[in-house]
């Protein structure tokens, strides 16, 4: 039975690249949108890449990648188009979680339970991972619109008890960072281990006075200036600058972020000029106070290279030669990725 795979990357048109969030934040934003999105690296790792590796192990040759609609949903009729192409079983993954799931076990469960739709659940509920038979897709093609991972009621869910984290929730994402740094999950920081729970990527520039308290990760080409303190539980992703005397603690600094001198970044995720406080859930704009900003890309060559889809698949320094084919005539923009 031919198995196809469909990955929905919520929240962005350009779903093939790492997101750089430009939140529309105005004054008085006590409960703004979250900063993090699913394509942001986690200690140098791309969660999409991890799902692609798992899908490849199923023997699937290619997958379809889409951003879905604004809320990351696709319609069942859109998925049914794949059934018409001869795919008899469709694995749909909404990229909102990192899970160390054996997809072969999910397929086995699906076959044994004879569900037309099998949804993966964990202790928190739906994980956004489902397996659909073509009959199920076609039967409801015309009537139901569903979340890419929403099952019909009455189906027996696949109960997953392994490691999983929702990566769209900033706090849980930071927990994943901590687990990756301490070896509590299978994800490993993408860099060279330099000491007890300290990983450093290629081309990092560290002033000799920088203090690093593990567990901590510093991504490729980041620059940490004099007197800065990183850690514990800090992740500074690639191409960042942490200026003199700034402390980053229990926090993540997302790629190409500049942090001004003398700051205290604690329990936060910072993306360019925006900071989300992990405890309060508040997003603050750092620009007016001159505390942080987005670092422009270095040159035009890099700019153009970043615009092609493959740039979005980190580890960014070793871009694999993914093959992409654009959709034509589909209601959703999607890409086919050769695994």
């Amino acid at each position: 039975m031919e198995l196809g795979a469909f990955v929905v990357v919520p929240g962005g048109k350009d779903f093939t690249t790492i997101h750089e969030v430009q939140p529309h934040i105005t004054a008085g934003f006590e409960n703004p949108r979250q900063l993090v999105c699913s394509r942001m690296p986690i200690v140098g790792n791309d969660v999409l890449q991890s799902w692609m590796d798992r899908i490849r192990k199923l023997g699937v040759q290619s997958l379809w990648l889409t951003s879905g609609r604004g809320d990351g949903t696709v319609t069942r009729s859109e998925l049914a188009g794949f059934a018409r192409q001869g795919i008899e079983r469709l694995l749909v993954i909404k990229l909102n979680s990192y899970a160390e799931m054996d997809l072969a076990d999910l397929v086995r469960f699906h076959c044994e339970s004879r569900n037309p739709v099998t949804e993966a659940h964990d202790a928190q509920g739906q994980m956004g991972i489902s397996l659909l038979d073509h009959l199920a897709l076609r039967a409801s093609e015309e009537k139901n619109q569903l979340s890419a991972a929403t099952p019909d009621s009455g189906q027996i869910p696949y109960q997953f008890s392994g490691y999983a984290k929702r990566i769209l929730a900033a706090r849980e994402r930071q927990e994943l960072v901590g687990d990756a740094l301490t070896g509590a999950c299978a994800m490993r920081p993408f860099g060279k281990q330099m000491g007890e729970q300290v990983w450093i990527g290629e081309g990092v520039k560290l002033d000799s006075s920088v203090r690093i308290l593990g567990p901590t990760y510093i991504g490729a080409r980041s620059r940490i200036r004099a007197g800065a303190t990183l850690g514990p539980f800090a992740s500074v992703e690639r191409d960042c600058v942490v200026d003199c005397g700034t402390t980053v603690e229990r926090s993540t600094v997302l790629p190409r972020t500049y942090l001004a001198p003398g700051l205290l970044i604690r329990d936060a995720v910072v993306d360019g000029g925006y900071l989300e406080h992990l405890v309060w859930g508040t997003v603050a704009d750092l620009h007016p106070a001159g505390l942080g900003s987005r670092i422009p890309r270095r040159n035009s060559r890099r700019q153009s290279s970043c615009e092609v889809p493959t740039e979005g698949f980190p580890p960014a320094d070793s871009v694999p030669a993914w093959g992409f084919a654009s959709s034509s005539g589909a209601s959703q923009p999607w890409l086919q990725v050769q695994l």
Partner: protein
Amino acid sequence: MIILPFPCLSNAAVRRALRKELLSALRGSGSPVIVDLSGCPPLNHEDIELLLECMAQVAGRDTQVLFVAGSRVNRVLLEVTRIPSLVPVFNSVQEALAYPKATVETDAKDQSASQAQRLWSA
């Protein structure tokens, strides 16, 4: 007890006037001073510079200065700039008034209170 509002500063002239008012109030006060940012939109770098000036003004003196963030965003920005490690920061004026050192002198400073009233209405 003096409560000094820190309003939205629309232009340089207003900012200069507020700076003068704040610093002179801090200089002339022997009682705790609450700088209330409730009326202030998210702080910008000029606001933070002015707050630092306020802190410098009372440094080494008996005058105690307290900040009221007024919003979570301002609270976050103050935390990021490490100001709470030097000056107590509260979410509301009520919390600041309940702060022990501030309340000790409240009753004895009627004159300061009336001054605060003037500043509130300004």
